């Protein structure tokens, strides 16, 4: 399965890239994050949220081929 991952703010700084497309066997965002964290120097998942195809989803949401996944660090607008 191929997914696209986008990184914003401090996660982009950590990952050193804005996005990537990768082959994965991760079935959920949680598994995907676990797979990417060591490789991309990402922090612990606590406090993050996740969006799939531009909608917030649960960490156990079922990923599908072609999905766009965005890990969302604590927001700080305003």
């Amino acid at each position, binding site marked *: 399965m191929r997914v696209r991952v986008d990184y914003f703010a*401090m996660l982009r700084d950590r990952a050193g890239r804005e996005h990537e497309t990768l082959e994965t066997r991760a079935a959920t965002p949680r598994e995907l994050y676990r797979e990417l964290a060591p490789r991309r120097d990402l922090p612990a998942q606590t406090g993050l949220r996740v969006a799939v195809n531009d909608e917030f989803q649960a960490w156990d949401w079922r990923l599908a081929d072609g999905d766009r996944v965005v890990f969302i*660090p*604590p927001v700080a607008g305003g």
Partner: protein
Amino acid sequence: MSDFRISRSEIEPAEEIAALEDAASGAVVSFCGRVRNHNEGRAVTRLEYECYEELAVSEGERVLGEAREKFGVAKVRCVHRTGDLAIGEPAVWVGVAAGHREEAFSAARFVIDEVKKRVPIWKREHYPDGPAEWINAAPAGGA
């Protein structure tokens, strides 16, 4: 045009206010959050805002819809700035037109609180005396 917008250019409160015109609304409340020259005792030289636009707009619209529903207000608008901001520049603007001031104040307060909590926008502060930092961006228990 959407009532929740992301803007790359300077927010003009006067233009935003004009878009709230409504003869049935006796009360207009606006909130404008601007870049301060300090934060938690530390001098700030400028700010950078970044957003995940697709989700920011849909979540922002959701917040405005909740405000309309919850407080029965006629019009609610919000615009959030992205990019590099100088001291004093507006970062976010919220405006509400309603029949009476009670619900106009409540709705404006609700929108800014929810936007700050829920809409995927991040800010990085720049200091005269050290590296820039993402604000509030260290997840609890994070590395």
